[in-house]
């Protein structure tokens, strides 16, 4: 089902959604927040939509900090949320993480309670490369609705029933299928999947792992972890018990495989002691381990890592080296 929404009808629609649901939108270049009028549509946000499903703090248990106290299980959030302005790359990130997290009750609860309205970029980015990683931004994968900015309107494709219901709050009119499909066709013809992926699939794991290029490519890496926190597909987490006064809580927090502590045993032994080993592990996970196990790379081509890396490391230097070793 395809619809056309005039650009000037976007705001009234968001207002209408906000009256019935808790609506989140990209508020500034930094990230998403509750809708209060601010709206940033010029490009993707620095922080991805991953946060709606893997939040910065996920309490698992609460307990009274005294011996013998039984912990109480935290009920995950159940409030129905709508997130508008999710880039298709970020939505694909959710789908990739879900391949691992689908059995997790906290993940499930957040997914069930959240509707995603996607927004395709006005122009293909110069810093990003979703197509190279096999993302078709027009597919609507992981979304309930997908909007394509087109001349003076948005072309809208309905993906789910929930999406249809949300769209019914707008002044969108049926139509635009032809324009939508031709935009999609044009995009796919112009922006192919990277041939590196096929090469990576065929390469032997240990050949890539043992290749000599890692030392050189990892040299500038500070192991700061910025790439992992900004990445819409990085899902590793830490678990911490926090006690304040007589209240204790066990929380799940985002974690980075770039950190020395990530893999250090209580004995002090660390299987990935060197910064290079940790750098290598991150790329091997994304472009070999995950690719082999799930058939797709753990990357959606958003380019955030390239843009924000303080050492100016470019993902493609690594992917190219891995695929050509």
């Amino acid at each position, binding site marked *: 089902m395809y619809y056309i929404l005039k650009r000037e009808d976007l705001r009234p629609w968001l207002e209408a959604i906000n009256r019935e649901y808790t609506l989140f939108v990209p508020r500034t270049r930094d990230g998403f927040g509750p809708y209060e009028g601010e709206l940033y549509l010029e490009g993707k946000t620095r922080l991805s939509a991953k946060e709606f499903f893997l939040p910065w703090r996920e309490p698992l*248990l609460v307990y009274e900090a005294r011996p013998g106290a039984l*912990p109480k299980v935290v009920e995950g959030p159940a409030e129905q949320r709508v997130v508008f302005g999710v880039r298709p790359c970020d939505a694909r990130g959710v789908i990739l993480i879900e391949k691992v997290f689908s059995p997790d*009750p906290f993940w499930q609860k957040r997914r069930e309670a959240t509707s995603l309205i996607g927004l395709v970029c006005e122009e293909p980015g110069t810093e990003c490369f979703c197509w190279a990683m096999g993302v078709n931004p027009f597919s609507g994968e992981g979304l309930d609705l997908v909007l394509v900015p087109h001349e003076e309107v948005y072309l809208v494709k309905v993906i789910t029933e929930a999406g249809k219901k949300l769209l019914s709050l707008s002044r969108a009119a049926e139509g635009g299928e032809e324009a939508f499909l031709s935009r999609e066709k044009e995009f796919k013809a112009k922006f192919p999947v990277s041939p590196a992926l096929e090469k990576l699939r065929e390469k032997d*794991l240990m050949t890539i792992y043992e290749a000599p290029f890692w030392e050189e490519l990892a040299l500038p890496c500070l192991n700061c972890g910025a790439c992992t926190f900004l990445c819409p597909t990085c899902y590793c*987490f*830490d*678990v911490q018990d926090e006690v304040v006064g007589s209240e204790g809580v066990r929380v799940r927090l985002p974690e980075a495989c770039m950190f020395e502590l990530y893999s250090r045993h209580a004995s002090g032994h660390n299987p990935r002691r060197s910064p290079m080993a940790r750098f290598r592990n991150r790329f091997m996970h994304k472009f070999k381990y995950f690719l082999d196990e799930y058939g797709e790379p753990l990357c959606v081509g958003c380019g955030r890592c390239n843009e924000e890396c303080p050492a100016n490391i470019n993902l493609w230097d690594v992917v190219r080296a891995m695929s050509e070793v």
Partner: protein
Amino acid sequence: MVAAPKKDMIPLPAKIEKVVVETDDGLLKSFYLRLLDEEAQREFKHTPGQFAMLSVAGKGECPIGIASAPSEELIMFTVFRTGLVTDALHRLPEGAIIGLRGPLGNGYPLEKFRGKNVVLIAGGFAVTTLRATLVYLLEHREDYGEITMIYGARNPGLLLYKEELAAWRKREDMKLYLTIDREAPGWDGLVGFVPQITEQVAPSGENAVALVCGPPIMIKFTLPVLEKCGFGPEQVYLSLENRMRCGIGLCHHCNVGPFLVCRDGPVITLAALKRLPPEY
């Protein structure tokens, strides 16, 4: 009916029924646990080689191999005091309540070992899950061929399960070789490192499997001995450990290349291990 393995990160409350100080240095204690929920306790079924996450509220969780056999009433863990959680655990008295999540991981394929000779090789406190395995094997004695255990510690005071060792030593249907690293007063048993003793015992690799658990240095020198004895890499089973947070394949801390110790292990054949990056 065996309950499906829990796929969430919520521990079940368990009571410490009994604590045994196992070693002279006091750094190893065995904790005998009973789940407070009677049904959960009844349904707790594990395979030797599996582990569980033990948690002390306010400190955190850590993975520990299950040292009790499936037939034993209480779930037992022998814990080395070394980090935040194990330190807190060691301070708890009998009767205290802790959290338990498990069983997790794969365990030893004991069905596959039927009809074969089984050689258990343990160094230091890594003997725990092999204790569980040995108890199981002895309970199903007729299903297996010769059973040999080689177990070494730095000194006699660091050997675990001393009463059981004495009983196993007397058995005619298994061979137990105990060794310590250096001569010690009052010790009339074998002296020497586990690899050397394995070389002397020279178990045959024919129709046999070897289960090896110990510190990396012991494993490194034991593997070539086993190869010489005729054990192929498919016949040697190791148990990996890595830092982990979830134990159920989510957090990715414990990965050895594409292999997740919690989900695909901890038990792994030497043949499979040789195909992985050396990140353990």
